[in-house]
């Protein structure tokens, strides 16, 4: 009788923990866990995994956590885990995987994303950053924007144009950009909240070896699709309880401040509450679908709806607060920590929520995707697909 996968995994974890002290050297422990294939289970053996389904991951992670083992600070290295790693796995060569995956997973090397540009947001494939062959390497010139954690990153996943004379999707190439290379300059980008969550990255004559190219020359778009598809998968998020998140904050204000209540605000609050609950249940259903191995497109519904309701709730909160809603906490320029969404003033929430319908794909683009890929509606007539990039109106 064959052992079940969960049993086998459980045995592997136990054996590993018997051999490695979870309270010992953090990095040593993480490297060993990677080498044992217990990092990302669905990765192949030799690359931190065992080639089994990712549905078993939560149990393994839980077992390590229960033993007091260090984690790899997944929030801090989310670009690496969510985007760079699958891209390296699918499009990197063996040397690249060996070079990059382990320090990526252990967090020794942080990755950032160098995709968007001032002139290429929704239309990412229209980007202008150039990479020109130079001997056995490349020279990169251009400007990237909306890069989180560019300051602490060792590597960046970079999409650059290597051939402007062909249609836009065909002239791109994908690189791992050395963020320590001369000519890489990072500048914080201030947003309407006053903070800087993101950066601009200026690339001026940056030399990259050809060994940093991922995938074939001109194949950058296909490589980037892998990256972006994995970004979308990771956005779903975990289970939240009723009144988790923004609606809970507003509900609490409502309960504790009877002086602020008005009949009109009451109905608006209830509408938002109902909508937030509908989104929560939809998220629950999405996770059940994933767990059942039947992922559905409803994650897109959650992202669209969440952006709208977050804006609705935070706007309503200010109106309910009245005089207090006119006051901000602090306009000082600073780099925010991980999650300050609920700790800052209501005005900060209101402003920050405006980004929800822009970042990670605007709501407009997402509606296009739903209409075409989910509903099967025909694409608009397009002129930009066949023209050489250099001839496109910009």
């Amino acid at each position, binding site marked *: 009788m064959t052992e079940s996968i969960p049993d086998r995994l459980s045995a592997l974890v136990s054996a590993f923990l018997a051999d490695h002290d979870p309270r010992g050297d953090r990095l040593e422990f993480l490297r060993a866990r990677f080498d044992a294939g217990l990092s990302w289970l669905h990765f192949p053996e030799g690359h931190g995994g065992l080639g089994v389904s990712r549905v078993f991951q939560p149990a393994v992670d839980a077992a390590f956590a229960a033993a007091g083992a260090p984690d790899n600070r997944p929030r801090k290295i989310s670009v690496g885990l969510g985007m760079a790693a699958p891209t390296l796995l699918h499009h990197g060569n063996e040397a690249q995987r060996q070079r990059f995956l382990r320090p990526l997973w252990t967090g020794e090397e942080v990755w950032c994303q160098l995709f968007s540009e001032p002139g290429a947001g929704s239309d990412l494939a229209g980007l202008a950053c150039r990479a020109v062959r130079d001997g056995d390497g490349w020279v990169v010139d251009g400007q990237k924007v909306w890069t989180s954690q560019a300051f602490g990153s060792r590597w960046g996943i970079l999409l650059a144009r290597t051939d402007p004379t062909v249609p836009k999707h065909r002239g791109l190439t994908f690189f791992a950009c050395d963020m320590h290379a001369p000519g890489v300059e990072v500048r914080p980008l201030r947003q309407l909240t006053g903070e800087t969550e993101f950066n601009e990255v200026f690339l001026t004559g940056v030399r990259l070896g050809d060994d940093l190219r991922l995938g074939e020359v001109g194949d950058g778009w296909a490589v980037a699709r892998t990256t972006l598809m994995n970004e979308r998968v990771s956005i779903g998020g975990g*289970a939240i*309880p*009723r009144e988790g998140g923004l609606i809970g904050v507003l*509900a609490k204000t*409502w*309960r504790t401040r*009877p002086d602020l*209540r*008005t*009949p009109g*605000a*009451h*109905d608006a*609050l*209830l*509408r938002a*509450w*109902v*909508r937030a*609950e*509908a*989104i929560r*249940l*939809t998220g*629950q*259903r999405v996770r*059940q*679908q994933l767990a*059942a191995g*039947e992922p559905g*497109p*409803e994650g*897109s*519904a959650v992202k*669209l*709806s969440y952006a709208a309701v977050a804006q609705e709730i935070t706007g309503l909160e200010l109106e309910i607060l009245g005089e207090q809603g006119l006051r901000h906490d602090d306009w000082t320029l600073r780099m925010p920590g991980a999650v300050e969404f609920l700790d800052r003033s209501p005005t900060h929430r209101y402003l920050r929520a405006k980004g929800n319908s822009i970042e990670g794909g605007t709501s*407009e683009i*997402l*509606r*296009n995707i*739903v*209409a*075409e890929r*989910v*509903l*099967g*509606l*025909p*694409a*608009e*007539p397009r002129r930009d697909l066949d023209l050489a990039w250099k001839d496109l109106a910009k």
Partner: protein
Amino acid sequence: MTSTDLLYSDVDVELRAGLRAMLGARSAWPDVLRRTETAETADPALWHTLATEMELAGLAVPEEFGGAAAGFHQTAVVLEELGRAVAPVPYLSSAVIATAALLASRDAELLAVVASGEKQAALAVPFSSGPAAPPHTVHADGSVLTGTVRAVAGGLTADVLLVPTAGGLFAVSAAEAVREPVVSLDQTRPLADLSFSGAYGRLLARGDAAAEVVVTALVTGAALLASEQVGVAQWCLDTTVEYVRERHQFGRPIGSFQAVKHRLADVWVEVAQARAVARHAAVCAGAGGWEAVVAASLAQAYCGPVAVLAAETCVQLHGGVGFTWEHPAHLYLKRAKSSAIGLGTADRHRAALAAMVDLPPA
């Protein structure tokens, strides 16, 4: 609160396929439209097939009462399909609302005949009732009932009427009532005004128990109506998507225009969410308890407006043709709008939620 299972089972999928095939063959929209202009607005043959042959009247009823013991979450699948077909059968009123009342009042005998589909039952309250029980308009003098109830769903074809009074809940033979058909907005769900003048009623429950039976029936109805609304909304979305893919103006399918695409994407988002909300309500309706009441009000606060949005969008995006009698869109519009009033408007359910989840009014 543990997470409810919001997915469809394999049995659900099979049930859906069988029903859809049957309804497509027996009650396609031209049949439904034609019937709205006849005297017999409900379809007795279709009811017979559904309730008796397919044995769906007792789907949620335990085996001891002759039911299939499948639970309300499976009844919900039936309602999705009936909504999708705007089928003119009193399934919601008999197999859900009246059945829930009989389950709550533990009337084995009546439950068995209703679960078998042999007889139809209807709770004699206005279809607009909810989430609170409506005021009593029938008076019981011992077991002799007098009074009037307006706009009762399923009241026209029910064999047995379950009549709430201050003196308790009574089962009354339909033969003892005068039934006046209502010219209703939604002719696919016939309503009737019922009058009793000295009708004999058999007492099913009295006092608080009777009141609780009525509330349980209305809550179950509200929870399950949400699945019917999802079915209506899904048909409207699917039909509109199909139409805008085919309909050409300006030399291209109108579904390639971004404003049309975005509008339908928004409807899809709403329907996807309504489905999660309706599934949650159906599962909770089976489990009972406090969360069933919350989930039912949540479902009516959310799903009713979604069905109306989908139906209104369907009419609008069909342009002129959606405004005609010959296109089925109006059947769905009328069903959606009257269902949004049925068993309590979203507004009233929001107010009920406010009380339940401690968000007090100003």
